[in-house]
């Protein structure tokens, strides 16, 4: 019963964000190192060949000192944050693992991600980014 309600709410959240948001590209950089014996050197081109990428609608909102119903956002993370946006549950990968958003031509680093997820249903992501 509750699960059906959450699925319905997820659809509503996605619809509202689609109506009021703009396109951004979420990226999870490539993580596998170029040389497995030297993981500290990282991958050759983490942005050029990302692990995951998806274009989603993001609705940018004023920065608040609180997250999704809680006061758990690290104040230091907030200081590093320039914008906060709401993203719906329709992304093709878990946005909690995203490294950056491309907003227009601007690359914005993800500073925190909060996920509103009652039971097993993701309703929306609350994503902080900084230039």
């Amino acid at each position, binding site marked *: 019963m509750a699960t059906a309600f959450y699925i319905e709410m997820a659809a509503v959240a996605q619809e509202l964000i689609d109506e009021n948001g703009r396109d951004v590209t979420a990226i*999870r*950089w*490539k*993580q596998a*190192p170029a040389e*497995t*014996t*030297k*993981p*500290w*050197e*990282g*991958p050759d081109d*983490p942005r050029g060949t990302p692990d995951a990428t998806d274009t989603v609608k993001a609705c940018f909102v004023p920065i608040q000192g609180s997250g999704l119903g809680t006061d758990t956002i690290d104040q230091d993370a907030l200081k590093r944050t320039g914008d906060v946006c709401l993203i719906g549950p329709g992304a093709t990968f878990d946005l909690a*693992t995203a*490294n950056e958003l491309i907003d227009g031509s601007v690359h914005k680093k993800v500073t925190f991600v909060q996920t509103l997820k009652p039971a097993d249903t993701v309703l929306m992501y609350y994503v902080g980014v900084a230039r």
Partner: protein
Amino acid sequence: MSFSTRRAAITEILGLFRTAWLGAGQADNRVKYDNVGKTTVPPTGNTPWARVTLRHIAAGQGSLSGESGQRMFDRSGILTIQIFVPPGKGLAEATDLPKIIQDSYEGVRTTNGAWFQDVVVNEIGFDGDFFQTNVIALFEYNEIK
């Protein structure tokens, strides 16, 4: 013994950590290195993880040039390895794992001459869901160019 590049020195210094870490039954994907966009660290679950930070702090000329025109330069810095073990497991793993890392550096000289002094283990306490212990080593090496 000396290095011809900075990257070669870093590779030997951090290579000691990696060898000890893997030898202790740990995995590469639970180590966070500087500026590597790893989202699997810190891990969830009942496994230790580590964050490795290498900082050069001093440099100076160590020799006059010879016939080849090359000179030797001294480099030194601090290597900090933060080790996080799961909560509720007492001090056993929080002692043994840092000790393995400490032993991999203390009194050791690498193939090309990086050496370490004052390798210390500091218990820090709880950090989030994990118990943190730091291994800190001062390193020195020579670079010829």
